[in-house]
């Protein structure tokens, strides 16, 4: 496969954002994934979220591991640096990149094989270190590139395309992320852009470890009857906890909700999430309750989606490391090299 650039022409009245960019400026070359792949919808949601937030594309670093999901960063944000790393190891590379320059926005894209199997350890440790990032798992329960083996997130009893049932207990990455200390935890569905785009925007604004598990059906290997990660199954069993409007400080609130069902959640930088509660008793700030809700909804045979948990005043890795505000990759000789005089003292102390 070679590289397919998109044609540059566009509608003369195309919408621009605050920076004067159109959504085309946030796109990449044409996707080579299967037509109808859920992952392409997620790429579209990332493009929309970045466009609407007026993010400078070059201030984003997009990193991935290996797999179908990990190929997607090629297909969005073509003006951002990207890094297709090794299988299951995106979290460590992203952590190192973040250590080097705390000022960029780090977008980690991974899949269920990449994060729940080979990279389970790295997923866990990047989350528990509180790396400031948006970590999206494009979760289809299946190994697509190698043609249809179950992944570790496949539900028990879910059937493969060839009819075999999965016997192993699934890993719930949302429950894991909660347990591991992620300060923003959400689940969404690639078929529900209305829910996914605001979640991605809120995750981008969140200054800590933000995790989104996005169920993203594999049209080639996991979209058949008997699969619990098919479009039909997820649509039929989607239990949304809430729906979101993401509002920057300047934009007025326009959405219209029934009184009493809306909660404003103000983030650290003054932006607001307008949270439309669908599950009456779900408090996104209560981690214990969030874990209970996940279990309860799962026991009903449904899939909890929406914003599951939010700590609106998180710490991140740099706060824990007490790193200087300037990015480490900008420090120069004078900042870093102690010089001859200091060395003479050290030598003297070693005699």
């Amino acid at each position: 496969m070679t590289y397919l650039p998109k044609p540059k022409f566009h509608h003369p009245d195309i919408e621009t954002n605050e920076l004067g960019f159109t959504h085309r400026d946030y796109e990449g070359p044409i996707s080579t994934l299967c037509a109808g792949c859920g992952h392409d919808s997620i790429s579209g949601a990332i493009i929309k979220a970045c466009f609407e937030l007026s993010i400078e594309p070059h201030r984003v670093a997009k990193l991935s591991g290996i797999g179908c999901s990990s190929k997607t960063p090629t297909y969005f944000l073509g003006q951002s640096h990207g890094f297709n790393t090794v299988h299951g190891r995106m979290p460590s590379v992203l952590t190192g990149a973040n250590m080097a320059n705390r000022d960029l926005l780090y977008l980690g894209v991974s899949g269920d094989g990449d994060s729940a199997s080979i990279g389970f350890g790295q997923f866990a440790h990047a989350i528990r270190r509180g790396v400031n990032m948006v970590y999206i798992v494009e979760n289809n329960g299946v190994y697509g590139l190698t043609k249809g083996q179950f992944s570790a997130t496949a539900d028990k009893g879910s059937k493969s395309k060839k009819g075999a049932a999965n016997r192993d207990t699934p890993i719930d990455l949302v429950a894991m992320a909660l347990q591991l200390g992620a300060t923003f935890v959400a689940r969404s569905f690639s078929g529900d852009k209305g829910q996914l785009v605001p979640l991605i925007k809120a995750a981008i604004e969140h200054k800590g470890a933000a995790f989104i598990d996005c169920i993203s059906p594999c049209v080639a290997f996991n979209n058949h009857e008997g699969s619990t990660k098919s479009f039909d199954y997820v649509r039929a069993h989607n239990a949304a906890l809430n729906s979101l409007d993401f509002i920057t400080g300047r934009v007025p609130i326009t959405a219209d909700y029934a009184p009493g069902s809306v909660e404003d959640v103000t983030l650290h930088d003054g932006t607001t999430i307008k949270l439309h509660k669908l599950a009456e008793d779900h408090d996104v700030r209560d981690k214990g309750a969030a874990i209970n809700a996940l279990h309860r909804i799962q026991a009903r045979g449904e899939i909890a989606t929406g914003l599951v948990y939010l700590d609106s005043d998180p710490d991140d890795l740099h706060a824990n490391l007490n790193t200087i505000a300037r990015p480490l990759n900008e420090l120069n000789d004078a900042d870093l090299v102690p010089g001859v005089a200091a060395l003479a003292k050290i030598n003297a102390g070693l005699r």
Partner: protein
Amino acid sequence: MPIQSINDFVVRFANVNGSGSASANQLFARSIIRMGVPVTPRNIFPSNIQGLPTWYEVRVSEAGNLGARGGTDLLVAMNPQTWKDDVAAIEPGGYIFYDSSRSIPKSQFRDDITVLGVPLTEICNKRYTDARQRQLFKNIIYVGALAALLDIDIKVVEQLIGEQFKGKDKLIAPNLEALHMGRDYAVQNFECPIGLRVRHADNVGDRIFVEGNTAAALGAVYGGATVCAWYPITPSTSLAEAFMSYCQRLRIDKETGQNKFAIVQAEDELASIGMVVGAGWNGARAFTATSGPGISLMQEFLGLAYFAEIPAVIFDVQRGGPSTGIPTRTQQSDILSCAYASHGDTKHVLLFPEDPHEAFEFGAQAFDLADRLQTPIFVLLDLDIGSNHRLCAPFAWDDSRKLDRGKVMTAAELEAGKDFGRYLDVDGDGIPYRTYPGTHPKRGAYFTRGTTKDRYARYSEEGADYVDNMERLAKKFETAKSLVPAPVLKSASRKTDLGVIYFGSTAPAMHEAADMLAAKGVHLDLLRVRGFPFSSDVSDFIAEHERVFVVEQNKDAQLRTLLMVECGIDPAQLMPILHYDGNPITARFVTKAIGDAVNQIQERAIP
């Protein structure tokens, strides 16, 4: 006849792990250095936590021989468990110093050694009631007794105790008291000094006494490293810890109290190197410290870093094979696993420091090389120089030196319209330009992958693009030959057909062996290689000699293999001299091995 020797002998302390002997033993070694006599201590520590044997060997050598010698002239036998073997290793005419509180049958000694019993436990129990005090002061008491027996200047020992407890002054007087209890006992009960003696000399000069790991860590500070990701593994752990402590001292922003560094103890070696790769990709100088098993775990990432051309520095403090046990012993056995680390066609730059001085120098230089060559750089230490104190030339720096950040295209250059192709060989040296993420709003962004790309970093599976990239990488590796530290030649005093190639911690034993062999009429030209890829100096040296011995501390003759493969040398020309029992190589071993080999060659030559 008891051995008589001034400033030239080996003392071996046999201790029980966890008994607090390490600092007392170091006090002993430092005292002799302060008297101007070179000393080389070596820890021999099996993989035990507490209550099992550990040894500390001190070689005293006014002549300045810093390699391990082998044999023991004076045994300080503090561990009954290893008594038998320890006693057996004493040289004929040697000495044994032991705790005589409990009587030991005469059959447990040897007829040809001098026995020096001091009732250490008895002295301690009489003076101290606290168990921990009894243990710790016992160590100082034996230092006091040894000072008398070996004629070590007690004022020097006193001064060192004062320096050691500076700031904790309360501890000085009790330590001095213990020291003198030991000294007084020895003076009253033995004819002091014995045949082994220390005499003031002036042979230490301005040298410093430091561990290679500490030196390499300081090198990383001077080399501008800001990111360290590591996973604990013997014998490399102290390198990361030393970096931490030097950073605390040298890299705190005065105004804010914030850190101009970031150190993460990763979950494993895969994550360690992953973080280093991420940080290097993003323009920070980053390193990890590990040992052989860590190198094995990092293989996949090392290949990615090689193909994606990401600067990274890896300090590998080498040890023996897998699992635990011999792994706490020294070897030079990661040469091939580092040189060819990873899948696919990969080759890496290696640096071989001989001592802490070079560990500092190469430790700093590695970061310049990594940025200049945009590739992983391995600094190969080993346990012998990494975890032991070694006398070496003081660390050197030049304030006019600038960090070489290599070919990085700036926002201004991109703005001016300079052509940017991430894998484009602009200068003909195989080294392309890179951009840091976030540099320019419209230009210079690229997608980083392994091999699947063209010169402009666009996705390509075309065979021609792949070959083009591989040829450029080969050219880059050629460029590296002139950038790594050059080999050091030490010519024999007369013309000879015999050469020796050696590297790293083998240096002092090799130098001593060369002198011993020269005295027997075997003259050797010595070439110490300090970097890989090998420059033409190395192949020329081999070409100039009929036979070249390759001396190394592993079983498979790994450096020899590298020489054969990379320089196209006839294997018959390179004779392996291999030492791999986990103990540091000795001059005695090298002398015998080369001596025997030379004899064989000569016998074969006689018709």
